[in-house]
């Protein structure tokens, strides 16, 4: 029995020694190759469209074209529910404070399909909300390099254009808009451009086109309606802006658009109005 115990200890020590010999650095992930095989890896870097990684327990770098990779799975440790909650109420500072350090080493891999794409979108939108347009553009470029999901391309294009608009670069926004394939996204961007060109009346008519013709487009209906609220405000139709903001807040409850609408609603005195109504 003692012999057996000693033997087991030796085996364990040997395994430990092996582990000790391969000290690996990089971003741990599971890589799924195009042929369906999965591999535990430590990602090293992206060079253009090539991904360099070390397989687990191997000190050797391997470089493969990203087109050979089906997807990556990351394992960041953070309270995802809390971040989503913060995002849905428009607490972008909190989102950024949590996600920036986590996503910083991962961002370079975003051109490859992965399990954090939605999180990355959340990060990009939060950066936009906080007017960090340089980072928004960088994020958009990464999204545009990812051809796994047309939705990402559209979001990347639209937000890149919005960042350009925020810095008064209408021609760039226009060019990006022309390249969009989603009709609803294109109309949304057009309305944003028209708004930037101080044409709120034209813009709101474009928005109503989205509401009427693309009423089931879950990606662009909510932002379009929120844009409508802002356009009413631009036209000094405060009651209309207030009511639109309230409806967007209620209809899209649980989304960041609802959070943004709530902020606008309160900014316009919505809560006071609600309190007054209750009072009467």
């Amino acid at each position, binding site marked *: 029995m003692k012999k057996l115990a000693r033997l087991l200890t030796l085996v364990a020590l040997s395994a430990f020694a092996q582990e000790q010999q391969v000290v690996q650095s990089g971003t741990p992930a599971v890589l799924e190759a195009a042929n369906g095989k999965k591999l535990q890896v430590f990602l090293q870097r992206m060079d253009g469209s090539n991904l360099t990684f070390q397989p687990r327990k191997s000190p050797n770098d391997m470089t493969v074209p990203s087109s050979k990779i089906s997807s990556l799975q990351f394992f960041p440790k953070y309270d995802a529910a809390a971040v989503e909650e913060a995002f849905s109420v428009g607490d972008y500072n909190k989102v950024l404070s949590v996600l920036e350090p986590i996503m910083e080493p991962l961002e370079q891999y975003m051109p490859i399909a992965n399990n954090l794409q939605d999180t990355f979108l959340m990060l990009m939108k939060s950066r936009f909300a906080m007017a960090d347009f340089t980072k928004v553009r960088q994020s958009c470029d990464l999204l545009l390099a990812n051809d796994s999901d047309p939705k990402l391309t559209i979001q990347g294009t639209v937000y890149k254009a919005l960042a350009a608009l925020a810095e008064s670069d209408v021609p760039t926004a226009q060019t990006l808009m022309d390249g969009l394939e989603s009709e609803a996204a294109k109309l949304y961007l057009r309305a944003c451009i028209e708004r930037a060109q101080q044409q709120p009346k034209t813009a*709101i*008519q474009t*928005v*109503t*086109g989205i*509401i*009427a013709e693309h*009423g089931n487009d879950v990606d662009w209906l909510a932002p379009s309606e929120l844009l*409508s609220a802002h356009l*009413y405000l631009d036209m000094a*139709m405060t*009651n*209309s802006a207030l*009511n*639109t903001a*309230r*409806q967007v807040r*209620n*209809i*899209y*409850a*649980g989304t960041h658009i609802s959070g943004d609408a709530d902020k606008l609603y309160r900014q316009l005195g919505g809560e006071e109005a609600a309190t007054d109504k209750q009072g009467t």
Partner: protein
Amino acid sequence: MKRVSSGLIISLMVLTASVCLGADDDPTPAEMLTEALKHMQAERFEDAVIMMYMYLGEVEESKAPRVITIAQDIRFKLATILIRSKRLDEAAAVLDDYIDLQMACDHPRQARRMRATCYFEIEDYDSCISAVTNALEYNANPIVQARRGSKSDDDDDDVIFKDPEPEAEFTPEELTMLHMMLAESYFTILKWAECIEPFEYVIAHTTEEQRKGYAIMQVINALIEIPDFDRITAWIPQLYRTTARYDIRVNLALMNAAAALSEAGEYDSALPLYRMILPRDELVAYQERKIRDIRIAHGLPPDMDEEMTADEMLLFGVADEREAETGEMNAQTGLLEEKPKELIEQENLIIALKELPPYENDVNYRMADIYKTVERYWEGLRFFDIVYTADPASEIGERSIYELVDTLIEALNEPDEAERRGFDYMSKYPTGMTPRQIAYMINGYHHKHEQMARVKGIKPYLDGLVRTNDATILKYDAELYFMQAVADLMLLNYEAAETGFKFVLDDFPESHQEANSLYWYAMAKLFLQKFDSAYSDFESYLKRFPDETYVDECHYQSGVCLFGMEKYDEAQERFAYVIDTFPDSSIYPEACSMRGDIYGSQGLLDEAIADYERAIAAAQKPPQATYAVFQMAEVYEAEDKYDDIIRAVESYLDVWQAQADIAKALFWIGKTKIQQQKFDEAVTTYVDAIVKYGGDVRQDGVDLMIAELVRVVAVYLDSEAENELKTKLQTALETTDDLTLQLRLRVTLAMLNRTETELGKQLLSELPDLENASPPVLACICDASFEMEDYSRAEELLRIFIIKFEDSDYMRAAYKLRGYGQYADQDYEGALQTIEEAQENYGTERDVAWAQLMKAQILLDQGRIAEAREANMNILNIPAWRGSPVAQATFQLGLVEEAAGEPLKAFGFYQRAYFQYKGHSGGYWAAEAYLASARCLEKLGLNNDRRNTYRAMLFDPYVSDLPQAEEARRVLGASEVAEIEAYIETGGATNITIDVEVPSAEEATETKEVVS
């Protein structure tokens, strides 16, 4: 369905079986059991049921555990067969017995679940609720069953039943279905609050998207009924994210729910529900795909009434286990009743859906309505437009175009677009109420904004509407045409207004606007100075409508007509009647002022003052007091009562404060100071007032001050004071951004510098429009145009005066420009009309002598010799027109006689013109008269006299240098002309001796005009 007692069924079955088998051949319970199982195995379920009932009837009373155990097993099997045979009420009764016995119950959970299903299917919802509740309770807390029984019917010793295999708890799917049945049962018996919790369970646990969506929908429906709108709002986003939106039932329920929410004012909740409703065609297509899938799943041809092709069989397979298990399809006959239940349900739903009238327009309209209600006007607009475009001629289409135009006009202030859409509709759909309502709306907007020209824009479309005898439509038409005439009136198109009101009176007799039309018809005539006719209509109104609104007004206006007809006594009486009868009327102050004017004209100044004071005291509006105060000031001025002027004006300012015509008041105050020799103070008052009030183009008091200021400077100020004043005005000009004030200051400076014409020319090219031009500025432009003989804007300028500055004294310049323009265009009737208006306004004032001269010339041009002669002769009799006008009139009289074939008489007038008036108009008329005289003498064959006339012309220093003298030089020839010139150089003179009138300063200006 009523519940069936299992005991009763068993008795009946036993009886039936006894009859069938014969009394003598009674089988034993064991045989019955064997027989039942045989039938069952052979799938002869009806026979199996009979045997099972017989068996149960036989052993019902037995207490033997073994018998009880077998009987319970048979009960469970019997229930299963009955369910399969759709004899659900019987099955429920059997299961009741099975469960109630509480012994040898091997399937307590499944029995309870089956019982609940049976009650649900037979729509016995109260029993279903009990059954489900019981099943769920049992599942959570299984009852410890009585385990004791008898060995046999005869043996009283208790025995313990053999423990059955423990039954599995309900699966999640079974639990979900039980909750669904419970929820639906509560819902069906209207227990709204109770149904929510089980539905919530379904929503939380079901794995089917569509079921989840349906459950959410039912929760929303229940919450609507409770009502609890806040909770609904929370549920809607969840529903939005499920595929249940493709469920026909959900879509129908969505419509009901949305309508209920909308009616309750819960727009935020109603709107997303409406949005989720899918168009019928889209739903049908989705459901047809679903039916196809179900059919394929059940081995049926993909499309109804079609057989599956070999390829489809290969691709989709044939009847599956489910079909074999349920046996619901007869593969040989393919009868419809054998279809799977879900397929039948689905097909029924799709039939119902197809039978529904199209609902998309209704949904879109309701959404539009909600958007509009919550002030999301642009969204509302879009949806109204969608509905209108989809079905413009329908009732909902009509409502949509109405709402669309209403939104554009009332909410978005987009009248141009409203008109575009409204007029388009009126021209395409000219019948019925809606085009009228739209016209009424557009009309109302323009009236409210005093855009009368745009009101007139409705007229062509109004004329295009199809008329009917419908009382309501007639009322609309009468109103719309009445408002058209009102617009004409406000545009000062009195002829059109007269025609318009007459149209209403003739085409819409006894309409609701008849009395008003008659009143305004008379008013239009009054404005056209058709006093007789207007008077008749006012009197007619008083007779026909003695209780209507305008009775007091009619009395007053009748007085005005009498005044116009120069029946001053009757007019005075009528005004007195109004004053005595209607002391509280709004026209009381006007009546007082009018009577005051009559007293004033009669020299009864105290009486006039008393009436003006009455008017001032009773004035309800500033203009009523303003007129009376300044009329009173005129009277006081005539009596040199300048202190009274100050008192009256200051009192007026105190009462009316900011509403008072302050500029005009200051004008009178300044005028008083001038009379008091306080020139500096007067100038300061005027300059300050011009700068302060000169930015308002309608302050005609400022314009009066400008004229008065120029007069004071010319008469009373020395050059130093004048320069100081000019510097002040120049400084004010440079420091203001107000265009109206700038123009007024520039024109004042030009008048002081006598450069009005130059300024006028400059302004003509400088001003894109005349919006900011006050009367002196307009007059300046008129003068410049006149000098350049540019009549292109004459009509516009006069119209601006008439519309904006009717009482301005500066309007005379516009009349002159217009008259000359019309004469140049040979629009003689138009010119005569303008002349008449100018003369009505300014009578025989010197600077409107042109009007009478032109009138005489036009009459001559028209060959109306006698009238032309009389017109010219009139000029000679007017003292104010002495000088240049008389010179021209004398010359024109010569032309008249020439045209009458009286060259000798003509010569007489020409001779008089160059003898007596050579000093006027720079000798222009004298020179013309010389040439005309020569022409007459030639006609008379007096050639020597003709040549002498030319010679006299060259000897006459007033005309010899004028261009006309060239004609004399040409006729006389170079040598004779040289002889005359040499003679003149030596100091020689003509033998003609004449008296020359010296022209006044005014005439010097006129001379310039004529020569130019």
